[in-house]
């Protein structure tokens, strides 16, 4: 089965508990469903191409830990996901 690309927008450090919990929650869901995923962690100031982040056939998690370093880039991703029907969850 082709891995599903899940982009996690998050600025918290990789060892911060909300960051680790977000990645872990995706892995729990993946394992339970037998649905392989590729998790791409993207700090908001490195969102260069919303067409990649919110690509059809992928999923987006807007992670916890605002204020984001680049909130306008986050809004652009949210808008793209909304308009294209890309599954998205924000926590």
């Amino acid at each position, binding site marked *: 089965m*082709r891995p*599903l690309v*899940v982009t996690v927008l998050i600025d918290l450090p990789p060892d911060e*508990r*909300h960051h680790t*919990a*977000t990645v*872990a*929650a*995706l*892995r*729990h*869901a*993946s*394992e*339970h*469903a037998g*649905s392989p*995923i590729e998790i791409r962690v993207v700090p908001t100031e490195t969102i260069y191409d919303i067409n990649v982040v919110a690509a*059809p*056939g*992928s*999923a987006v*998690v*807007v992670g*916890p830990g*605002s*204020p984001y370093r680049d*909130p306008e880039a986050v*809004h652009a991703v*949210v*808008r793209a*996901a*909304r308009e294209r*029907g*890309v*599954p*998205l*969850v*924000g*926590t």
Partner: protein
Amino acid sequence: MLVEHARSLAGIPDASHAEYGAGGTPVISLLSCSLQDQTISVDLTRGSCLAGLYGTLRALERTNCSYGLAPEVQHIANEHGMQVTATDATGEVRAIERIDHPFFIATLYQPQLSSVRGAPHPVFAGLLAAARSHLQSH
């Protein structure tokens, strides 16, 4: 997500988030009661995607949120394709979703904090299921 909704759909082009300082029309503001490191009870909206994922109309969730939907613009969470899908005991909006989208959910709590191996949180399980379905249609 609410800021983007407010700017793009709800007719508030200068919608802002109070956490980023003064300016614009704040649609996200500091909660009167901070919810740092708390467990809250949320009531889910019958018939919503979120309630369907949980399979119940009430759940306990962990939260670290200090900000929420500004009281002055509460109405936008139930307009332009958005609907409120969870509220807490004080009536504060705790989750929203789009009714015109396969899976578009925002929570003002942190479902990932209660996910464990073997029992994934339904929001994350639902996200992957929706994305897998979306992937197969492309």
